[in-house]
């Protein structure tokens, strides 16, 4: 939560102290009498995180269903945990030219910092608010691009289409 | 021109080529006149003619291609038997050179430098032809035509062989 103002600076010491404690008191009393608890009965109840939550990655796709990623490797360069592994290859489409043949993220290494999202020049990788991940063995924690782009939860396996599409970019390029 | 046809200068042109060589102190300098000559004989300068000239003169092929592509009056694409140059520079444009050019393209249903369907003419938009006193001016092959309008231009072009 972002505090809007500094109570102490704005109202002076005593009044600030009073206002601050008032908030604390109200919350305490509410919790005692209204029983509004933060603990949820997971998995029956689930917490909903905002879209800005940095959860499991997703690779976006173009309108034709291919990966948007051009395998420029900026994410893997920027990644502080060095958990992104990309193997690039020629694409038969001259306009695309370069595409990944394999894109893997080691989920156990990932620190969910979201730097990859910021480094990406083509909006190909995003962090979602998906936070439920599980696995038995280490291998299951390496997400390949099928998992990252076409898992069931993403548009029923069709993947998330990025709005800044290649064709739009080409149009912008005129 | 079919590719099977043997590409070489006629005896007369070969003599002219030899004469060109005497004018210059090195063979490279004779390239531009030779290209003019070749274009006169072959119409335009496709790769196999470039190859012939390269062998004849001992100049690298790419060098000749560079030169052909550099100059407006040497053609590496097919052109018609007659070339029509329409000036579109300042003075000629002031007096409607561009309209004549567009009008001609429309009339002959062709495009920049593309030969008409009967292969008779190619229309080329040119920069200043150096005849601004008779603007708008054109060149039909090597002849200047001044103070033209679209109708006279079409009339004159139709007289071409």
């Amino acid at each position: 939560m972002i505090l809007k103002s500094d109570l102490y600076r704005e109202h002076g010491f005593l009044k600030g102290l009073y206002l601050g404690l008032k908030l604390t008191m109200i919350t305490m009393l509410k919790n005692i009498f209204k029983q509004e608890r933060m603990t949820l009965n997971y998995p029956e109840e689930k917490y909903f995180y905002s879209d800005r939550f940095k959860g499991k990655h997703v690779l976006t796709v173009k309108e034709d269903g291919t990966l948007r990623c051009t395998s420029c490797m900026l994410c893997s360069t920027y990644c502080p945990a060095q958990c992104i592994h990309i193997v690039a290859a020629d694409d038969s489409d001259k306009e695309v030219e370069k595409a990944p043949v394999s894109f893997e993220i080691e989920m156990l290494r990932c620190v969910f910092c979201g730097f990859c999202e910021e480094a990406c020049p083509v909006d190909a990788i995003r962090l979602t608010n998906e936070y439920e991940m599980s696995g038995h063995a280490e291998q299951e924690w390496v997400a390949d691009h099928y998992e990252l782009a076409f898992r069931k939860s993403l548009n029923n396996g069709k993947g998330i289409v990025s709005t800044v599409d290649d064709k739009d970019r080409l149009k912008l390029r005129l | 021109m079919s590719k099977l046809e043997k590409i070489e200068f006629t005896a007369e042109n070969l003599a002219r080529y030899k004469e060109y060589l005497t004018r210059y102190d090195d063979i490279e300098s004779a390239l531009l006149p030779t290209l003019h000559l070749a274009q006169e004989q072959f119409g335009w300068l496709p790769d196999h003619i470039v190859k012939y000239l390269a062998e004849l003169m001992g100049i690298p092929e790419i060098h000749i291609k560079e030169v052909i592509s550099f100059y407006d009056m040497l053609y590496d694409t097919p052109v018609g038997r007659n070339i029509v140059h329409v000036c579109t520079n300042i003075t000629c444009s002031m007096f409607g050179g561009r309209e004549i050019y567009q009008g001609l393209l429309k009339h002959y249903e062709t495009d920049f430098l593309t030969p008409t369907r009967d292969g008779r003419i190619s229309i080329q938009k040119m920069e200043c032809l150096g005849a601004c006193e008779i603007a708008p001016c054109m060149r039909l092959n090597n002849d200047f035509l001044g103070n033209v309008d679209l109708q006279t231009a079409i009339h004159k072009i139709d007289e071409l062989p």
Partner: protein
Amino acid sequence: MTEKVKFKWNGKEIEADKGSNLLKAALDNGIEVAHYCYHAGLSVAGVCRMCMVEQDGVPRPFPACNASCGEGIVVRNDTPKIKSSIEATLSFHLLNHPLDCPVCDQAGECGLQDYYMKHGQYDSQMVDKKVHKDKVQDIGRNVMLDAERCILCSRCTRFTEEVTKTHELGILNRGDHAEITVNEKLKNNYAQNLVDICPVGALTSKDFRFKQRVWFLEEVQTTCIGCETGCSVKVSENKNGAFRVKPSYDHEVNGHWMCDDGRNIYKHVSGALRLFGAQENLNGLFVPVDEFKTHQLAKGKTLKFILSTGLTNQEYEKFFEKIKGKSAQVALYVLPNQGEDFDGLLTRGDKNPNLRGARKAFEDAGYDSSQNALDKLLSSVSSNDAIFVVVPEIIYNEDHFNTLISKVEKAGLKIALTHGETLSTLRAFDFLLPIPTFVEKNGDIINFQNKKRALRSGISYGETSKDVSYYAGWVNL
């Protein structure tokens, strides 16, 4: 002795040969001057207009690449006027550039990127349609051309005109439609130098294409072992392997260039067949084994060594030291000549990287390095022998080497010291033992000029500590 002159560049005093190139003098003295078209190994074109300077007493700015050093001249390229002109010129360079850095292999070592960080006009005013040209053209000899990225510095055309004199590349058309074009395909054996000299991503290597980003790579300064010329090279590698070889400037041997054959010398270093430990031949199938087993089998046998010409002087020295006074038979296998003796530029027919060093080491140790000695050794092979064959790193003529292998078949124990299971005929051996490749060892080799050339190690992949001399230690155990 050429006369020296002193002049000032941005206030820094520089000493250079009189009349030498002003830009070169500045670059040699560690001054960073933006430039694209100038290359010390080529003629001056003066077309990129990035190296403009102002000189006191000269009214107009001029390009430093077309000026010569004179005594006492005062040159600046940090005045506001020049700075803004460089900015403007760079923006012209970028005007029709497609800006596809994410997919461009040059990114990270691109002249446009480098100078943009320094001289960029960060807000774009370009909303117009760019000029489009042909992308992704395979122009032969492992070179890819992207005409759109090209800034027409003409380095490549000058290279094919002046260095290789093969005239494959030219610039067709004029104005902003000018485009690098290849006549048929590249044909010369130096074509990949074009990739190096291209300051932008217009010419890229098909071999290196999309394998790695250059910022993941480290460059190791070493020497090419492709032939006896011994060109200075840089091998780009990281923990995943070696990825490319580029020439590095050495005015005594190779100048700025290297041949295309030499570009392939990295391939065995991290190739699929690279040997990382001892292997035993089980009916034609090599399986990992403890090296100790080989050691045990070799005990009591007469050890014979056939060395290759690819070892360093230090390795030979150490080897002969180890077998000094012991009864080991040693011979040298010399690779046969390939093609013409000398192609006029760099490539030589003699493919032995360190033949001179080997012969000298043999001589110093009192051994015979001639073909006779090898023949003698081969003819005397018996079942009581353990024969060690050092497999050359690069074998151009496999048949020639296979004949050698066929002659050692009689030996009781056949061991190949190699970097990998590269040849099918290596199946004739009982054991394969790993030795380091040229990027995994430090030492000297002696090239055709009788000059010492240094091999330097970078990141190791194999079992590098055990070189030939280690196995020599098995003699007379």
